[in-house]
Every structure is written in C-alpha cells, then in structure tokens.
C-alpha cells in the first residue's frame, strides 16, 4: 500500500504542495499545529480563513481511516496566522517516512517557524496517569524506517530516508525553551504535565506486556505510532518543535488490561482542552529565544 513510491518525494514536491496551498490561502503562517487522535475539535478554535482538503494538495498523503478525510485549516489562532493539519497519516497505514514528512516540509515552505505536534500515547512510566500531558523532551525511533518501502528519491538525492536520517540536525529536535514554556503554562493552569521520552513504534497493534517492559527499560516514558517522522522533518528544515503527548492509558504489564481504540480516543478527547490551552498560549506569547 505504498502510495508514493512510484514517484518519490523531493524538495520540489514540497514546493509544489506549498504553492497549491498558497493559491487557496494568501496568509503567511507563523505556526503549524498537528492534531493527533481525539484532538480534532481543536480545529474549531481557529478563526478559519480557508479549509483545504488534503486531496486538493499535490503529494499530500491521505488518511486511510474511514471518516478522516484530512484537511488543512488555515486562519488565526492566538493572534497569529496558523495552519492546522487536521487528520494525520501514519506509518502503519503503509506510508513511507518521506511521505509523512512532506506536509511538514510544505508548511515550512509557507514560512512557518513553529511546529506544535500532538498525539495520544500509552504511558510506560508508572508515575503517569490517564489524562496527563507529557511534553516530549526527546524521542527513540523504533519505527524501523529502513525496512519500509524506499522511495526512488533516495537515489536521486531527494528527501528519501537516508538523506533525512543521516543528517545530524544542529539543534535539539524538541526546543528546550518551548518545553519549559509549556510546562509553566500547565503549572499556572493547575494541570499535570511532565517532561518525558516518546518512543515511536510502527504498530498498528498495541504492545504486548513483554514489549511494554522492553520499551520502559530502554528509557521511554510513553509509546505511540506517530510524531517521530514529523519531528525529524522539522529538525531537518529548521522548524522549532514542541510535541504534546496525551497519556490515554498507562501500561501495567504486571496486571494487564485490554486496550480499546475507542477508550484511547475518549481519554484523548477529555484532555483536549488542556492541550488547546498550551497550544494557544505558546502560539500567542512572544516565543522565547532559542537556547
């Protein structure tokens, strides 16, 4: 089901996608928000100026889940121009990493300087509780990119796997000043948010008990099936990144519980206002200097 391998993904494709967005909306975004599982309602907080279906943007991947068409919501939020990526694509849907990175590279082309990612995750750190927010301080990539279908762009020097992964970004993937700011917003608003390490796995099945123990042991606090490709793309193109992870359930491998997708979505929806609060304030405030 690799939707893109025939053509590959190149920087000029990010440019083409950006041009298509510009034709529908003449704003220049300062920030981009990526809405994860259960957080789609946050799109309604945007004073929308244009809504563009992913289907209308060349080279954009399309979510395969029924009912999730995928759209860009462009407008004002926190007093600034933003683009919201509402509807995310995942590696488990069959998309190679370069394709998952393309929307991030496209919004960078439009001029965005800040990226806020969000996702729903399983807690591995036993100190976490359902509904907590983890501000991602670092990640572990266990998405095994090399085994996914590779794009011909690899050989052409485009944005293939090797070109992106082998380059060591000059700044940390997750902006330390923004992490501090997000944690402060949460403290002042009296809700729980912690710094933590996100491990990205391919999925789509949830983890076995043995896998939960393994992932905890190698240093991860939460596990999920997204975010890493986008964060890597952002680091490569110089976007400052903040990633907010909603802990929807906490894995207790010694007294296992069945994980149901609908419970995950509900838990994320419950925490959505808090994620919205952090997003709104981070976008609205003057951004702290880069450390």
């Amino acid at each position, binding site marked *: *089901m690799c939707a893109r391998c025939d053509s590959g993904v190149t920087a000029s494709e990010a440019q083409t996608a950006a041009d298509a967005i510009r034709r529908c909306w003449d704003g220049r975004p300062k920030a981009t928000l990526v809405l994860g599982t259960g957080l789609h309602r946050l799109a309604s907080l945007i004073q929308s100026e244009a809504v563009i279906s992913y289907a209308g943007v060349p080279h954009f991947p399309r979510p395969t889940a029924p009912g999730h068409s995928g759209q860009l919501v462009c407008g004002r939020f926190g007093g600034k121009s933003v683009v919201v990526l509402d509807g995310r694509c995942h590696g488990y*849907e069959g998309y190679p990493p370069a394709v998952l990175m393309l929307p991030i590279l496209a919004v960078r082309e439009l001029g965005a300087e800040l990226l806020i990612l969000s996702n729903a995750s399983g807690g591995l750190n036993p100190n976490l509780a359902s509904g907590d927010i983890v501000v991602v301080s670092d990640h572990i990539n266990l998405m095994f990119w090399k085994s996914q279908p590779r794009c011909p762009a690899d050989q052409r020097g485009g944005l293939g796997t090797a070109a992106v992964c082998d380059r060591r970004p000059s700044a940390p993937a997750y902006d330390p000043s923004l992490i501090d700011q997000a944690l402060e917003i949460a403290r002042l608003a009296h809700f729980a948010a912690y710094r933590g390490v996100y491990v990205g796995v391919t999925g*789509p099945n*949830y*983890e*076995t008990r043995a896998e939960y*123990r*393994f992932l905890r*042991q190698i240093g991860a606090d939460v596990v999920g099936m997204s975010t890493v490709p986008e964060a890597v793309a952002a680091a490569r193109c110089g976007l400052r990144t903040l990633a907010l992870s909603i802990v929807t359930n906490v894995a207790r491998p010694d007294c296992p519980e069945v994980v149901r997708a609908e419970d995950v979505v509900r838990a994320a929806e419950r925490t959505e206002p808090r994620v919205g609060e952090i997003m709104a304030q981070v976008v609205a405030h003057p951004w702290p200097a880069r450390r």
Partner: protein
Amino acid sequence: MLELYDKIQAAVTAIRSRWTTEPHAGIILGTGLGGLTQKIAVEAAFDYESIPHFPRSTTATHRGRLVCGRLQGLPVMAMEGRFHMYEGYSLKEISLPVRVMRALGARLLVVSNACGGMNPSFSCGDIMVIEDHINLMGDNPLIGVNDDRLGPRFPDMSEPYEQKLVARALEVARRENIAAHKGVFVAVPGPNLETRAEYRFLRGIGADAVGMSTVPEVIVAVHCGLRVVGFSIVTDMCLPDALEPANVEKIIAVANEAEPKLCALVLGVLAGESAS
C-alpha cells in the same frame, strides 16, 4: 490489506473443494517438527503449490504441505513447513495461511518453532511454552489500509497467547514428565544467528528465547480473533559467555529428537479442547 480478502477466499475455495470439514485448530509446524502430521488421520493433503496465493517454502527442512484430518478426535489442518521473513516473503504472505485457517472456521492456532535458548535455566531439547513475545522483526503484517472484515485497526495485545492454554500445556508437561518452561519469545528477521552482543541485548530486554518466525502469524491470529498457543523447542543454548558455533545439522537433530515431546503437548492441549 484490501487485496487479502479475495486471496483468502480463493485459497478457501481450493481447500473446500477437497475437504469440507470445519477445522477446530490450525497447526503450524516449525523447523524439524513436521513429524506431528504422522499422528493425523489424514483426510486430505495439499501441496502449497496447489493452493492459490500460498507461498512456497524455500527451506530445506520444511516440506510445504497442508495436511487436513483428525487429531485427538478434533478436525485440524496442519502446515508442514512454514515461511520466513529471511526467505524474502512479506509478513502478509507469511501469515496468509492463518487467515485462511480462520476463514475455514478454525478457532485455535497452535504454533511451534525451533529457538535459541537465552535463559540460562533452559537446556537443549527443553520446550518453552510461549507466554508472550517481543516483535523485533522491524515490520508488521498489519501495515496498510485495514480491512475491517478481517479484524480491528488496533488489535489489543495484552494476552496474545491464551493464559489458560499456557497453564494447560504446562500441566500436560508435568504429567508426561517433560521438561517445559514458560517464557518470552523474541522474533528477529535473521537469517544470520545472533552475535554475543545481540544475545546479551535480547536477554537484557526480557526475552528467554529467540527465533526468526511465529510472531507474524500470532499477530495476524490475534487480529482475526484466533486463540493461540505456542511452543518453542530449545534447539541450541545461546549463552554469550560460553557460545559455541551454531551447527544447523545439530539444531535439526535436536528438534527431531524433541519432537515426541511437542507431539505430547499438542495432543494434550487438543484433548483439553475436546473435553471443554
């Protein structure tokens, strides 16, 4: 994954044309363990080539035959010979037979394999009843657009191997005086055997045994709603501080020698099935 449905139907039709019984269990026999099929009262047998969309086994020790009939009074279908990622097959191809078993009516999947023992309490020739697994194959058979007719998008994995069946297998082992353990199986793509550093790593992350199969089939079994019981035969001990070069002939000899134990456990588990 949307192309799978038609492939499954085609394979089901081919098998049904010669065997109309609804199987209770599907059985996958691993390296050197094909002999269990001799215990089956055979009603029909199919070369893999004769079943549409079945891959062909390229391994020397795997025969490539689907045997249908009765074992312990229960209708079963047993795969003599399985497919591996290191042969170049996709995980979707490897696990297609499991979906075919399910589509034919099976409720239980019995998997077996030859594994390297990393838990120092194990001995060569012992059996490990698989309690849980770690997927380090770097791939997953469920990647792609999900076909909701076959199973859910995000299958739960809190109990891929039914705990009741693990307990039953261990009980049979005690009764039959078979040395058996309970443990975590980690699957890697292979085909090379592990380095000493890799054995330390795999042991460190919580695995008791390592092999190059089984996990894709089990993930698909959970996805399509089959109960699962799994057996690993410890065919060589992989202790990084006293590691001997692997000898494939010896591994197969140990598997053949341990085969009666596996047979006894499978028969015992199936006996419990017909009783319940």
